[in-house]
């Protein structure tokens, strides 16, 4: 019997007197795509950053299991170990590409950085890998030496994705990956993400307020409101048969296209 990759129990996160997440528990399995939906301020991004090791929870545990290894608490392990896992085993695609990219480093440098962090020193191999990943996320490898600032918003999102996938992570965290993109670019990114998830058997946690994106990309959904998970289940169960008043409000508020 396989075990989950990620095990979260009773996670709370407060900022001073403000509670951003309360009593969140979840298991994430290899190859599974979990969506977290809810309106702005519901604690989705805070939760994601706690899972990814960027924010320390106030209470509760986030445990990650490396291949064949035991569960390790992301927030109780040593700093060096956590940094190593964050660079190799998972990555976070930020809503704002400027938070996820190094803007003063070329596109190729952005992609190569995680390889170097994982110990690769051979320049030719790093560059070849960077070219191959730029191509896989549908960026022109001819622009490898350009700075990310010269790329459009959608291209910057894809560069963030390439930067993370190059280290063959087991989990990718996505924070509103289609937010701020125009719809034709959104569709392209959705298609790309869906294929990468299938071909690389990635586990993904995706925060979005777009229920259409959630339906097409995710297997399972958690609905958050004011820091708490009010409903969870298979994505189509939650969207077609929402039980909680807040889930019903979310689903009924979508403007069909």
């Amino acid at each position, binding site marked *: 019997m396989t075990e989950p990759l990620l095990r979260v129990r009773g996670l709370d996160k407060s900022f001073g007197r403000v509670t951003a997440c309360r009593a969140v528990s979840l298991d994430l*399995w290899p190859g*599974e795509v979990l969506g977290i939906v809810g309106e702005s301020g519901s604690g989705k991004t805070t939760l994601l950053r706690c899972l990814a090791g960027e924010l320390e929870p106030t209470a509760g545990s986030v445990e990650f299991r490396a291949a064949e290894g035991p569960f390790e608490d992301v927030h109780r392990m040593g700093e060096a170990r956590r940094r190593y896992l964050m660079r190799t085993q998972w990555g976070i695609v930020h809503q704002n590409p400027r938070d996820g990219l190094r803007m003063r480093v070329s596109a190729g440098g952005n992609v190569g950085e995680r390889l170097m962090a994982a110990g690769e020193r051979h320049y030719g191999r790093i560059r070849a890998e960077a070219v191959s990943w730029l191509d896989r996320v549908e960026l022109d490898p001819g622009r490898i030496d350009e700075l990310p600032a010269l790329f459009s918003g959608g291209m910057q999102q894809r560069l963030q994705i390439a930067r993370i996938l190059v280290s063959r992570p087991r989990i990718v965290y996505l924070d509103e990956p289609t937010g701020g993109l125009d719809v034709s670019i959104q*569709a*392209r990114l*959705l*298609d790309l993400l*869906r294929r990468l998830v*299938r071909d690389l058997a990635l586990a993904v946690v995706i925060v979005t307020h777009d229920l259409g994106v959630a*339906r*097409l990309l995710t*297997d*399972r959904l958690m609905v958050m409101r004011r820091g708490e998970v009010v409903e969870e*289940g*298979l994505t*189509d*169960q939650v969207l*077609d*048969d929402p*039980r*909680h*008043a807040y889930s*019903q*409000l979310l689903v*009924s508020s979508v403007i069909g296209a």
Partner: protein
Amino acid sequence: MAAAIEIESLDKSFTLHLRGGTELKVLSGLSLAVERGECLALQGPSGTGKSTILRCIYGNYRPDRGHVRVRGGGDTVDVAFAEPREILALRRSTLGYVSQFLRVVPRVPAIDLVMERAQESGVEPDMARARAAAILERLHIPHALWSLPPATFSGGEQQRINVARGLVAEQPILLLDEPTASLDSDNRAAVVDLVREAKARGATVVGVFHDREVRDAVADRVLVLDKAEAA
């Protein structure tokens, strides 16, 4: 002979929190069994729960009470109590579903949408593409459309892509919700042939067939639902 689907004392209601907590009872104490290789047609006026039954079997709606036991190739899974992961695995291995609407990622070509369903069920890519092409051919989708995303297709063409997606993986249980609703007679006949072939290879079918000719052509048994069942 073991039943492929066994529903026992199934209740399903919807509580509309945004409408002052109005409760809609759709299914109440429903029990039914479908034998392996049998085709059961669900019949009855709108609102009697035909689609709801299909969706409860598919794991799309969560029952209030009761059991929905599905027996595919291997173990029996009670969909009413299964974990999301188990339901997803059951869908890939066992449950083909043709819904009334086509919901897909924009920009993806029609043939890819069909072949990915076969791939998800473990069919190798070359074989999946061959099967997708064969079924699109059978459903009279013009070749020029295969490489286009279905967003711009006519209603009937989209419905046929949906039928192709539901049937291409050749799962042992097929759930068909009005598969011929917006089809002309040639295409209705094509769907009837495909469903009969599925039965011939031993598939169990539960369907809602608005069209009487289609129903007569494929169903072994008809279950008539009425308001009393739904009250």
